[in-house]
């Protein structure tokens, strides 16, 4: 029995961004989280932040001729210069993060556990890791959302009872959006709130390493 289709990254990003309010200050990690920059309606005023010192940028630029190499986010991706944009130093950028001035951070994840711990630094087979800005972001933002595939390429669980990889940040994750559903971590449990079309809770539990609590009002994802 083949598994149902998983959610497209664009849809995953739309699930994350549907709750953003105008004025929210949101840091987007590289990879999947950055998709969020591209699905925000242009009439919304969400201030996007990237830790190298840019705040208030718009969508990723795909037309190379329009790219300004001085307006880019982490990962050397050129982004749109929105009115009201600000540049800072790295130390001020993290003053802003650590000082509690971010509303949301959307991070990628390798493992998230039911104690809200996040591991997103790859150590396996590597002599060291890459912490990047995630430790500060996960601590400093009022809300940390992890946006990731529900399992690894080779089918290993990423939503787990207890992270086995080194922690990037402890007790920080409030929501997990994956390609099969939406989970909130509440009171030490992973609560399944929304499911991708065709994915019932049992099937999601089957690819999840933590026991899922099924929300009373669990429903198919809406945008």
């Amino acid at each position, binding site marked *: 029995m083949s598994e149902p289709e998983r959610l497209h990254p664009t849809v995953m990003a739309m699930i994350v961004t549907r709750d953003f*309010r105008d004025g929210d200050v949101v840091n987007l990690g590289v990879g999947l989280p950055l998709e969020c920059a591209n699905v925000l*309606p242009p009439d919304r005023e969400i201030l996007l932040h990237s830790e190298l010192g840019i705040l208030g940028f718009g969508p990723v630029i795909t037309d190379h001729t329009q790219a300004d190499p001085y307006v880019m986010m982490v990962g050397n991706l050129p982004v749109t210069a929105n009115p009201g944009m*600000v*540049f800072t130093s790295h130390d*001020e950028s993290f003053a802003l993060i650590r000082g509690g001035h971010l509303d949301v951070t959307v991070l990628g994840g390798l493992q998230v556990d039911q104690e809200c711990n996040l591991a997103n630094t790859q150590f396996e087979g590597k002599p060291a890791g890459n912490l990047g800005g995630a430790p500060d972001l996960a601590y400093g933002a009022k809300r940390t959302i992890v946006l990731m595939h529900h399992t690894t390429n080779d089918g290993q669980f990423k939503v787990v009872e207890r992270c086995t990889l080194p922690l990037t940040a402890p007790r920080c994750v409030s929501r997990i959006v994956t390609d099969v559903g939406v989970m909130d971590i509440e009171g030490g449990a992973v609560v399944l709130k929304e499911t991708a079309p065709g994915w019932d809770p049992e099937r999601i539990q089957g690819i999840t390493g933590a026991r899922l609590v099924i929300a009373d009002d669990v429903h198919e994802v809406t945008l």
Partner: protein
Amino acid sequence: MVRPQRGRSGPLINKIVATFDDAVADIADGATVHFGGFASPFNSPSYLVAAVARQGATDLTAISTSMGRGLASADQQSRWLPPELRPRDFFDIGLLAELGRIRKGITSFAVGARHDWVYPFEERLAAGEAEVEVLGQGSLAERIRAARAGIAAFYTPVGPGTDVARGKEVRDFDGVPHVLETALKADFALVRAYKADRYGNLIFRGARTFNETMAGAAAVTIAEVDEVVDLGELRPEQIHTPGVYVQRVVVRPSQPVTSWGTAL
């Protein structure tokens, strides 16, 4: 099942507040407040100070580089300007001390610098009606910056061997004694800037003093500005204070209002 995202869900960002009275209306008795500037009519958040005086909040902890001169300020602080250019709308926190609103000052300049200069806060202190914590400007500035930056405490080499270090932890780093100083976060920060946009981005004119330092070091930062410009007019490289540090912006009147009692 997956439907397209709907449009706008709320108002555009607009941090401009119509009046100074509105801007400070929710400062509660007992609040801790950063007052920016450096004892000059040209960098003091004068109209915000006057609005706090009108609003009536009392029992304040005031964090400010100096505790102010009170209503005599404008003349004394700008005596080097031709009389016709002297601002008549300079109010510093000495006004709040005069009105008995300040329970505690955290400051670098607690008193008049001469025997015959006696300022309002000093009189309150002498009368036992207020308390004060005096520290050097560097530690004061760094403690405020730490609050903005989410740093709980830091070790500075300035202070050991003086009264400032009393009761504080002193630890050696590389053989040099350092004193542990903690972040000074406030409920409100009142700062003065030159231009702002509706996102709250600020630029300053001249030395940025404690105005830049304090913006973002409080739950609510309120900026008094000369001018609000269109979004995009302030260039991203030139903005001194990112708007995310600022919650409210109020524009100064085009003509000076010389009485602090005037609703504005």
